[in-house]
């Protein structure tokens, strides 16, 4: 059967494209990083971050640090996205970390493409001594795997 060029699908004139095609968005995966500094031992640090308005969905989340052993042994946090509590207070940081044995494409904790809403992310990080590490100031990085509208 031959393809017919009809009124709705003119091959040359792009301005006459159907509405559905015009509305197709260009989506781009982006990784966002937010840092939080832990300067004192056995303390809670709270910080709020904001995503761009163009972020359409959040696919995943990952925690890393400038001193991974500190984060692994001492850290726990509460994470809230758009006022929706994703991880409650006391959720251990080690459960959200991935080692180098994990493929880079699979390191993020799956959030299932949640909508960012207001795009405000709140993180309350708690440092607690467990006897295995000697405290030194360190940085906690929160990585978000997002889909952005270009």
């Amino acid at each position, binding site marked *: 059967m031959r393809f017919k060029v009809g009124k709705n699908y003119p091959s040359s004139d792009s301005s006459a494209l159907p509405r559905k095609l015009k509305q197709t968005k260009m989506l781009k995966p982006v990784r966002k990083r937010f840092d939080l500094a832990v300067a004192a031992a056995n303390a809670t640090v709270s910080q709020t971050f904001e995503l761009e308005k163009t972020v359409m969905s959040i696919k995943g989340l990952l925690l890393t640090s400038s001193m991974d052993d500190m984060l692994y042994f001492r850290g726990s946090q509460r994470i809230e996205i758009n006022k929706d509590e994703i991880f*409650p207070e006391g959720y251990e940081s080690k459960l959200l970390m991935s080692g180098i044995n994990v493929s880079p494409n699979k390191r993020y904790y799956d959030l299932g493409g949640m909508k960012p809403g207001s795009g405000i992310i709140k993180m309350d990080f708690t440092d607690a001594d467990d006897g295995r590490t000697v405290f030194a100031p360190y940085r906690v990085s929160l990585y978000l795997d997002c889909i952005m509208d270009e």
Partner: protein
Amino acid sequence: MIMKERVIIKQVSITKRGETQYFQIRLPRDAEHIIGIETGICRTGKGFSEYVHGRAYAAAPVAVIAAAAPAIKVPVPVPGPQAGHFPVGFRRNILIGELKLQSQEKANVFFSDDVFESDQNIGFADYSATRFFSPSQWTHEFKRFEEKVVVNGVTTLIGGYFKDRIGERFKTNLSYTVNVYVWYEVNEEKETKDDDRLCP
């Protein structure tokens, strides 16, 4: 139907050798199903690392350190693999305790597990280890996942039992906290409907 995953945390504190703790976890009203259980250990006592690592690794010079500085209470460092060491020897994981969870409904005892702190064989057959870099939990650990369970969420309370084993093994009081994470599912559409009913 849009289902959303949520988690609740129960912290169980252990301070004595062979201690048994019974606890209850209150499940929210909107929980449809319990879908997974995860555990984590947080040490709270200074003596923990000395006992566990000092005795688990025969090569660790714990006695030498203790004799040289008996008054100084410092955590003994975990010995890393030595240069030229052939990393294919298995080491037994250290059992921390036993956990059991029970639903008040039909499922009854739906979860029973041995709780370990970490994988002692994380560096097995890893030849990247040097004097300055040794595979450890925070560099080589795989992504963690919860233990999947499928239990109806109609129960109001989950009964829990934790028995300390590591204190018994080393014949000393070791203090630590066991975090029990209960993952459950919530029906979001139902939540919205309920809200509409309350505030027309």
